[in-house]
């Protein structure tokens, strides 16, 4: 889609890397133009007027000027800074994971306003909830739905037979649930409990607010997390990079990586 020479939009910064002397190369997710790569000049200098408005996980109203190779942000004003999310290590890790997923699942310049709203709500929600893991499962599934990757959760993805309770499997490769008859078609099929399937179905259609009210026992939460992460690994053909950090600082867990390595 051709963009005008100068355009105004709303964007959430997904990632940022140094560029040249004092510039940054940003990957932003806009409300109306999808994911874009743009430059921001001089923002690494402490006196930059733009810098603080363009830190990752910040939502800003921006003005962008078209460039030959790269568009450049000429003004930025924070709309939402998600300070509660950024002030807590565990929540921040959840937010970074969500931003990486949005980045990985959206191609450049493909407008996706539902994914944008989801990211906005997600960053807000993750900063305030006492149940960030369950909310993240919901966000993962909704994001898959908004980008056309949601796995089939209702009938066998191969033969379309209705599922009989307690006797079904999940295969990332097949793209959803399988009946026992179709199991041999996919080597990666694993047993899926009826409770986990119900939770996944619920989380994939509920609102964020109802999702976090769900009470899910730990082993079941682990089964659901295993399903979504296996499925995401299949869709992205790689591990979500932020997952390692999320696991390290999540659940108020002791910091295993460094302390065990040092002992």
């Amino acid at each position: 889609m051709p963009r005008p020479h100068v355009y105004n939009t709303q964007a959430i910064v997904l990632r940022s890397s140094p560029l040249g002397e004092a510039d940054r190369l940003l990957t932003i997710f806009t409300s109306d133009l999808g994911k874009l790569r743009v430059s921001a000049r001089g923002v690494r200098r402490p006196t930059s007027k733009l810098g603080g408005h363009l830190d990752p996980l910040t939502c800003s109203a921006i003005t962008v000027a078209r460039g030959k190779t790269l568009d450049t942000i000429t003004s930025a004003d924070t709309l939402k800074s998600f300070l509660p999310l950024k002030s807590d290590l565990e929540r921040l890790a959840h937010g970074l994971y969500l931003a990486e997923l949005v980045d990985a699942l959206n191609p450049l310049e493909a407008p996706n306003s539902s994914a944008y709203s989801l990211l906005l709500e997600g960053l807000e929600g993750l900063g305030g909830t006492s149940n960030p893991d369950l909310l993240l499962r919901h966000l993962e599934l909704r994001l898959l739905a908004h980008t056309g990757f949601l796995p089939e959760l209702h009938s066998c993805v191969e033969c379309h037979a209705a599922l009989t309770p307690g006797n079904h499997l999940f295969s990332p490769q097949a793209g959803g649930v399988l009946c026992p008859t179709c199991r041999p078609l996919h080597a990666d099929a694993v047993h899926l409990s009826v409770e986990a399937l119900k939770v996944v179905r619920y989380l994939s259609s509920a609102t964020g607010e109802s999702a976090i009210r769900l009470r899910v026992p730990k082993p079941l939460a682990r089964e659901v997390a295993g399903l979504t992460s296996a499925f995401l690994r299949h869709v992205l053909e790689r591990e979500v990079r932020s997952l390692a950090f999320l696991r390290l600082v999540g659940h108020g867990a002791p910091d295993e990586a460094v302390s065990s390595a040092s002992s």
Partner: protein
Amino acid sequence: MNSDFLPAAAPVADLIEEFHKLPGIGSKSAQRLTYYLVRMPQEEARKLAETILAVKERIIFCSQCQNISEVDPCPICTNPERDRSMICVLEEPLDVLALERTHCYKGLYHVLHGAISPMNGIGPEELRLRELLDRLKDGSVQEVVLATNPNLEGEATAMYIHRLISPLIPKVTRLARGLPVGGDLEYADEVTLTRAFQGRQEF
């Protein structure tokens, strides 16, 4: 004539490519630097090449603060005037120079050589954190100042280190984050203003 030109062009292209790999050097700057070097007297070029090699051969990491140095331990770590009860944690060697220029800090340093960046796959194990923990073991350090950059990665790094070392150290502080000198209040973002307000001090 063409056969003379081609072999000469290849090293030029190689050098442009090498410069382009350096931080802060775009393709235009890489070309400019290369053509400057092509015109440079032989002797000067040799001196430059030798200086680059000397840096690689003579510079090592201080086993205590992890800063780059010619000797181990480095002059700051062995200076008897420095306050050994304080360690200031920084991302890069250049940050040490910036702080030293202020002459306001007399403690020791610890250089992490990076910041946590989960999306780029840079976790705590990529930083020199084990070395920091080793330095805190004997109980002589009373305060650790976290002076990572005031951006998302620097904050994540500071929060992570705080969680890791607060059981070991009586006082863990964070460099005040706030309004830059020369900046305008009206252009400040919400996070900067909030943190500047939280960090306000009595006049």
